[in-house]
C-alpha cells in the first residue's frame, strides 16, 4: 500500500510538472516579452543534456567531460544537410544522432581501456582535439561556421516541420520543441533504465570486476552507454543550432555544454532519471537572471553566476552528495499530510 501511494504521488508530481511546463510560457506570451521563454528553453535543453549525460556518468559511472563534441557533431550534421541538400531538420536530427553515435563508438572504444580519472581526462582530450578540427576544417567553414537561412515556412505545422520559428512565436515555438524533446528523452531513457542495458550499466559502475565475472563485457557496455549520451547531445545540438540559426565551433564546442548539464545532474541527483531536470530548473535560471539583472552594476561582469554555482556544488557535495532528489521526499510528504511516518509501520502499512 505504501509503495502504491508513493507511486501515486510520483504520478501526481509528474502530471503537475507537465502541466506547469506546458502552461509556463502562456501568460508570458501575452506580455510580448519573451526573455523568460528563452530562459525556459535553456532550462529544458540543459535538462535534456543532463538526462543524457546521466547515462554515461550516473548509470555507467564513467565521468565524461567531453560530450559537447557530440553536441557539435549533431549541430553540424543537420546544418550541413540543411544548407547543402535542403534536408528537413528533423531528418537532419536523425542523421546527426546516428553520426554522433557512430563516431562516439569509434572514438570511445579505445578510451575504455582507461578507467577512473584517466578515462575522464581522455574525454577532455578528445574535446581538445575536436576544437582545432572545428576551427580549421574548410568543409564546415572553419571558424566562420555555418549560417542557417530562414525558409519562411507558414503556420504552426510548417514552422515545426522546418524547425524554424520566427517573430513573436519564435521563443514559444522553440520552448515547446525543447519540451517535447526532453519528454521523448525521458521516456526513452526510462525504458533503458529498466532494461537489461540499464542494469548492465549500473553493475559496471558498482563493480566492474564483478560485472565482468558474470559475463558482462564492460568495454562494450561503456561504449553503448556513451553512445546513448552522444545521441541525446547530438539531438540537443541540432535544436540549438536551428534556434541560433548558426553553427560555429566556439559556440557548439563551448565547455558549458558539458559543465552545465553535469552540474544540473549532480545538484538534482546523479543516477536518477529526473535528477538533471530538477538541477536544471534550479541552476539555469540563476545564471541567466544573474547575468542579465546585474547589468552594469558593481557586481556585473562574467563569473558571479559561476561563484554561485560553486557555492551550490560545494553545499551539495558536503550535505547531500547524492543530490536533492535523494532527500527523503516521500517521508516528508507523508508528514505534511499529517500521517507520522513511524505510525504506518505499525498500522496498516
Amino acid at each position, binding site marked *: 500500500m505504501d509503495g502504491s501511494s508513493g507511486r501515486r504521488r510520483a504520478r501526481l508530481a509528474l502530471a503537475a510538472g507537465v502541466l506547469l511546463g506546458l502552461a509556463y510560457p502562456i501568460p508570458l506570451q501575452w506580455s510580448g516579452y519573451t526573455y523568460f521563454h528563452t530562459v525556459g528553453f535553456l532550462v529544458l535543453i540543459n535538462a535534456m543534456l543532463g538526462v543524457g549525460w546521466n547515462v554515461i556518468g550516473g548509470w555507467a559511472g564513467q565521468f565524461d567531460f567531453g560530450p559537447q563534441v557530440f553536441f557539435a557533431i549533431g549541430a553540424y550534421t543537420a546544418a550541413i544537410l540543411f544548407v547543402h541538400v535542403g534536408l528537413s531538420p528533423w531528418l537532419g536530427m536523425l542523421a546527426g544522432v546516428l553520426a554522433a553515435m557512430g563516431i562516439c563508438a569509434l572514438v570511445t572504444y579505445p578510451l575504455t581501456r582507461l578507467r577512473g580519472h584517466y578515462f575522464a581526462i581522455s574525454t577532455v582530450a578528445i574535446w581538445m582535439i575536436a576544437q582545432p578540427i572545428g576551427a580549421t576544417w574548410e568543409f564546415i567553414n572553419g571558424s566562420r561556421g555555418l549560417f542557417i537561412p530562414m525558409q519562411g515556412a507558414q503556420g504552426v505545422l510548417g514552422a515545426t516541420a522546418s524547425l524554424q520559428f520566427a517573430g513573436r512565436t519564435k521563443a514559444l515555438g522553440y520552448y515547446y520543441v525543447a519540451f517535447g524533446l526532453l519528454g521523448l528523452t525521458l521516456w526513452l531513457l526510462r525504458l533503458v533504465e529498466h532494461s*537489461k542495458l540499464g*542494469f*548492465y550499466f*549500473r*553493475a559496471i*559502475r*558498482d*563493480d566492474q*570486476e*564483478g*560485472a*565482468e*565475472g*558474470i*559475463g*558482462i*563485457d564492460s568495454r562494450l557496455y561503456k561504449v553503448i552507454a556513451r553512445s546513448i549520451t552522444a545521441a541525446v547531445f547530438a539531438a540537443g545540438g541540432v535544436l540549438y543550432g536551428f534556434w541560433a540559426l548558426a553553427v560555429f565551433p566556439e559556440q557548439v564546442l563551448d565547455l558549458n555544454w558539458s559543465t552545465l548539464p553535469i552540474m544540473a545532474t549532480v545538484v538534482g541527483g546523479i*543516477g536518477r532519471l529526473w535528477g538533471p531536470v530538477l538541477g536544471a530548473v534550479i541552476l539555469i535560471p540563476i545564471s541567466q537572471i544573474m547575468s542579465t539583472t546585474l547589468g552594469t552594476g558593481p557586481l556585473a561582469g562574467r563569473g558571479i553566476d559561476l561563484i554561485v554555482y560553486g557555492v551550490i556544488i560545494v553545499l551539495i557535495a558536503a550535505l547531500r552528495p547524492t543530490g536533492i532528489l535523494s532527500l527523503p521526499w516521500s517521508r516528508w510528504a507523508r508528514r505534511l499530510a499529517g500521517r507520522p511516518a513511524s505510525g504506518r509501520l505499525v498500522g496498516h502499512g
Partner: protein
Amino acid sequence: MGAEPAPPVSRDGALLDMRDVEVAYGAGVLALQGVSLHVRPGEIVALIGANGAGKTTLLKTIAGLVAPRSGEIRFAGRPIGDLEAPDRVRLGVALVPEGRRLFSRLTVAENLTLGTFTNAEAAHRREMLDRVYTLFPVLRERARQRAGTLSGGEGQMLAIARALMSRPRFLMLDEPSLGIMPRLVDAILEALARLHRAEGLAMFLVEQNVPAALELATRGYVLQTGRVVLEGTSRDLLGSELVRKAYLGM
C-alpha cells in the same frame, strides 16, 4: 622446493584441464609457473596456498580475466584460452570473486537477475531465483534491500547465488569465508555441500581455512609462489608433512 610424489590421476574426461600455464605480471614477474591441474565433472577440488601464492591469479586465468603467457586451458575438452570472459561464462564457467564484488547500489534481486542475463532466457529466471532462494533463504527476505546493506556473510551468499544464476557447470570460489563470522562460514560451506550433493556441480575452492576446505573437497592442490608443489586426495594432503606444518600449524 621438492614436490612429494603425486598420485597419478587420470585427466581423461576432465571438465577443466590446465597444462603448463604461465602468467606474468609486468616485466617478467611470474605469478604462475608451469601450473598443470584438472577438475573432473562433479568433483570438488581445493586449492591451498599462502597469500601471494597465485591462487586468485589462477582463478582469474581460468575465468578469462587474466591472460596467460603460455600454456593450455581446456574446458569440457575445448580449448578456451582464446575466449573472452563473457564467452567462458556462457560455456558454464562461473567465478565467485574474492571480496564478493556485489553491485552495492542495486537490490539483492537485481544482483541475482543480472547473474542470469548472459545465459538464461526470462522464462528460466523465475526457476533459477527459486533455486537460489531455497539454497539461501535469507536472500529471499532481503530481496528488495540494497546489496550494500548486507552483512559480510549474507553478501557472500549473494555472491555465490549470483554466480549460480548463470547455471554454471563449474563454480570457482575465491576465499568464500574471508572476513565472515564463523557461524555463517559453516552455513555457507554447508550450502555448498548440499548443492554438490543435489546437483553434482563441479567446484574449485580457494580457501585459507584449510581443514574446512579439505573436508568439503575430495582432492586438492597446494600452490606455493606460483607452482603446484603438492597434489593429492584430501586425506593425503591432511596427512602430508607440508600441509600439516605450513597450513595447519601442527
